[in-house]
């Protein structure tokens, strides 16, 4: 692999991590408080539009992190050799343990992303029809509140996991965390 390609892969990897982690921090600590400063109807529009766009960025980042992560390992000769997986990538070595944990975190982030995108967001976006009675409306409102709570909790868990992932990722430069 040429040096420029290795640089490009590393750059895209770092950029994707930055978009995920920095975006999550911005959503939690900057955009959410700003949303509470405007009237509820406008806040709802802002919340919907920011969440839709951020989810798109999250998915692009997660896919790019995985692809460029694998390519970086390939460029370093850790995968694709005679044994396909280099012995250093095993659980017996600190580097391997850190990398396996990183992959585990990535899988959890993907699962959480799937839950938010396909389970909780549709509940939150559901609209009432003109034939909806009072009981259905109450049930619908409760479901929306529960979905919003789940999204908030999962997003916070994702932020903590992403920060842990950056710690593990940085430790790989020194041979692993533990």
């Amino acid at each position, binding site marked *: 692999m040429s040096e420029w390609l*290795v*640089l490009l892969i*590393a*750059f895209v990897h*770092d*950029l994707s*991590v*930055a*978009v*995920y*982690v*920095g*975006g*999550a*921090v*911005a*959503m939690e*600590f*900057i*955009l959410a*408080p*700003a*949303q509470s*400063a*405007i*009237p509820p109807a*406008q806040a709802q*529009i*802002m919340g919907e*539009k*920011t969440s839709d*766009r*951020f989810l798109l*960025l999250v998915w692009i980042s997660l896919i790019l992190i995985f692809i460029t992560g694998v390519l970086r390992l390939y460029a370093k000769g850790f995968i694709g050799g005679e044994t396909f997986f280099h012995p250093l990538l095993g659980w017996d070595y600190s580097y391997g343990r850190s990398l396996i944990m990183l992959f585990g975190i990535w899988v959890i982030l993907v699962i959480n992303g799937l839950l938010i995108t396909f389970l909780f967001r549709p509940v939150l976006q559901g609209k009432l029809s003109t034939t909806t009675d009072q009981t259905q409306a109450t049930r619908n409102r409760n479901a929306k509140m529960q979905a919003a709570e789940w999204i908030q909790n999962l997003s916070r868990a994702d932020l903590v996991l992403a*920060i842990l992932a*950056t*710690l593990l*990722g*940085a*430790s790989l*430069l*020194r041979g692993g965390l533990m």
Partner: protein
Amino acid sequence: MIWVHNMAWAVYLGGAISMELVLRHAQQFMRGSQVAVVCQNSGRKYRWLSLACLIILLVTGLMRVTWVQMTQSEMVLLFGALLLWSLLVGILALLALHIHPEMHLRVSSSMTEEEVRTERKRVGVAIQRMDFWVRAELMIAVLAMMVGTAMAI
């Protein structure tokens, strides 16, 4: 220390990208008066967060390079990174001291319709100016990250 440096980068750059791609996108669907409120509110927090990240980046970055012996090409990259860092601090100061205060809408009941229109126009121009500088900041930050990546590998 590498982790703190990387985290500061991630928060700074990711925050800038979010402000541009997420907040700007949402603003297209909001009323102008609310856009100014959100811009002021988020801008105030964002610039403090950015300033903290830039200071951490400088401190941890300099600590990292003092431990290693650098080649000439690495010195050029370091000089480039410091130049870009200075530009980012300059833009942040411009946003904090000049552009964000200009976005404050000053309307009172004693003002004529014409004066209110002029005031709204002034705020609109300030928002456009902020958009330009936030984009410039984002471009420079991405370039700086490329320099940082080149130094790390």
